[in-house]
């Protein structure tokens, strides 16, 4: 047995305690449990720590390794930052759901077998749906249902794959595989749905912006990055992922450019950033896996920071769209500065965490002589600056004076933002702090003069392109169709057609049976009799009083027939 509490259990316990506690005690639970979890994460040694027996399968709910600890660390840190950001504004059940959701993510991080991975996976699906619902609007309710359907579908596909592997190999261990048979394909598809890979990525941009200003901070961190970890553990070097990753990178940029909703821009840029990681996992070399892990770590921090900044704006103004806000730097300077730091980090500006991690992925592509991949990633880096790096802060905090003069973020939100901004810069100027904890030994120098010059040119001229092309990027009050149009409209119409046809058929059938019933009734009434309107008995054919002579006649006929047939023989 083990001599420490499993990290996921600590956080889950915290989630349970948020409800019954009040006041300062609840604040303590919210702020302390993530830190206790973090401490427990670092107690997990390498290798399998705990084995239980379930049916004939050995369940290994806790298995340590550097990459697992790295992800669990950032998940715990994220729970702390999110808790700090949210605890005075969010309702208790949103906090509790968010913590249970984070516990699921940490559980997946340490899951040594596919069964416990699946259980924690579903825990996340369950509680992230609750977080979406905490948005509290009819839109959030509908989006939450669509979100839940998609994740339950993903869960079922994953489960099919896991059971296939259990039956065919007898082993449920989490180990590297390739998409080479049906079972592995199912597992891959199940994970990719959570990674928001095409064609099922619309759930992310659909649901996240509908959640509460605090909820979207939590949502931005766990689901997709857990999928990234699962891909690192299960499908490193699967070449298919390179193409999928590149598609995600471009998809995120294009859709973010078309988008008007502030948080939806950031949601699309999650897909874009996860694309970088998925692509790196596809490359699969040690440098690439290090890059994917490091980038996921850095990404969670700056993406949460961006959602915090956007959340503060939504919280203070109640407005969600670029076309409604603008010029907020005047009264929300801190939120603006933190948002800009997050924006620079996501763009991979030198001295931010985005630079020291994303360039590793590019380096990995270059090392493998993947020319196209390298240049597409470089173009995407420019595109990130375009859609998130400048577009987000520009339209929210500058652009034009919307006349809005909201107060700056509440103090706890401000502290969380400053903390995460500091981390963005810390890992930018001292990348070794992160490199030391990556899955493989790091032989990489982020800051060479040539690389810095190249990326500065790339980004600064993207900035120039943004301001020159601004007339082309005028905000329109629109949404952009995604693949979910196929089921939200096409399938919906088809389903409606089927139901109306069935209804019509049913109606026709009812008319037919009614007609039949009437006919049978008439006949019955004629034969057996009925009651008239004033209650008098109207005898039917059988109930009539027949004259005795008629009966005698009928009996004579029957007897004659009998005699006739008797002698016929």
């Amino acid at each position: 047995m083990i001599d420490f509490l499993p990290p996921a259990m600590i956080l889950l316990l915290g989630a349970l305690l948020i409800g019954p506690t009040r006041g300062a005690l609840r604040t303590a639970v919210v702020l302390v449990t993530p830190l206790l979890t973090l401490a427990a994460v670092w107690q997990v040694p390498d290798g399998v720590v705990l084995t239980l027996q379930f049916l004939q399968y050995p369940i290994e709910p806790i298995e340590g390794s550097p990459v697992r600890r790295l992800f669990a660390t950032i998940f715990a840190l994220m729970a702390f930052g999110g808790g700090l950001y949210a605890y005075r504004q969010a309702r208790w059940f949103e906090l509790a759901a968010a913590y249970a959701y984070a516990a699921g993510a940490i559980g997946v991080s340490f899951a040594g077998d596919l069964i416990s991975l699946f259980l924690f996976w579903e825990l996340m699906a369950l509680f992230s749906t609750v977080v979406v619902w905490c948005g509290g609007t009819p839109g959030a309710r509908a989006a939450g249902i669509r979100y839940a359907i998609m994740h339950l579908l993903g869960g079922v596909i994953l489960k099919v794959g896991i059971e296939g592997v259990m039956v065919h190999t007898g082993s449920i261990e989490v180990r590297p595989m390739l998409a080479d048979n049906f079972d592995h394909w199912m597992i891959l598809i199940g994970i990719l749905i959570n990674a928001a890979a095409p064609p099922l990525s619309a759930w992310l941009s659909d649901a996240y912006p509908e959640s509460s200003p605090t909820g979207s901070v939590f949502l931005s961190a766990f689901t997709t990055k857990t999928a990234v970890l699962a891909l690192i553990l299960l499908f490193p070097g699967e070449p298919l992922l390179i193409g999928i990753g590149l598609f995600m990178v471009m998809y995120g940029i294009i859709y973010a450019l078309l988008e008007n909703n502030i948080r939806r821009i950031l949601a699309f840029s999650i897909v874009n950033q996860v694309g970088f990681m998925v692509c790196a996992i596809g490359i699969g070399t040690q440098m690439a896996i290090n890059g994917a892990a490091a980038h996921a770590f850095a990404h969670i921090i700056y993406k949460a920071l961006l959602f915090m900044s956007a959340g503060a704006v939504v919280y203070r103004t109640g407005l969600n769209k670029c076309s409604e806000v603008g010029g907020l730097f005047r009264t929300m300077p801190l939120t603006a500065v933190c948002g800009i730091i997050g924006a620079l980090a996501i763009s991979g500006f030198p001295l931010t965490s985005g630079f020291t991690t994303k360039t590793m992925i590019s380096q990995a592509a270059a090392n493998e002589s993947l020319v196209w991949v390298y240049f597409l990633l470089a173009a995407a880096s420019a595109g990130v600056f375009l859609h998130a790096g400048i577009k987000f802060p520009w339209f929210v905090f500058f652009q034009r004076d919307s006349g809005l003069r909201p107060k700056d973020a509440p103090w706890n939100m401000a502290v969380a933002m400053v903390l995460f901004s500091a981390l963005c810069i810390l890992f930018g100027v001292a990348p070794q702090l992160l490199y030391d904890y990556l899955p493989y030994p790091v032989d990489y120098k982020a800051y060479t003069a040539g690389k810095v010059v190249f990326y500065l040119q790339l980004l600064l001229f993207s900035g120039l392109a943004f301001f020159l092309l601004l007339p082309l990027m005028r905000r329109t009050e629109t949404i952009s169709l995604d693949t979910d149009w196929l089921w939200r409209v096409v399938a919906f119409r088809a389903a409606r057609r089927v139901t109306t046809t069935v209804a019509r058929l049913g109606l026709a059938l009812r008319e037919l049976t009614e007609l039949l019933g009437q006919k049978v009734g008439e006949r019955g009434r004629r034969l057996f009799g009925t009651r008239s309107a004033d209650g008098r008995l109207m005898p039917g054919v059988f109930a009539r009083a027949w004259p005795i002579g008629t009966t005698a006649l009928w009996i004579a006929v029957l007897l004659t027939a009998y005699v006739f047939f008797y002698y016929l023989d």
Partner: protein
Amino acid sequence: MNPNNDRDNRMKHSGDDAWLARPSTIRLLWQVFAVVLALSVGVQLLFPVKGYFGLDGWLGFGAVFGFLSCLAMVLFAKLLGKFLKRPEDHYRGRDDD
């Protein structure tokens, strides 16, 4: 948010006092930006970029590549927007009932 209050706010702050929003500041920022852009290319003469594939080591490659990729992406997004953009209430009444 009350639209009347909103308008009041707008009226109150119509004379923009923010330093960052003044035309003179914006002109100054553009000038600084131009100098920075020129510097970022010029500095390549001092610190040559060691490209991985030859052409990415050329003078100003990052600048041209960054600019053109952005141009291409914006135009492509614009084109795609013609087909994909719908009014915001496109889905309304479908999912909610």
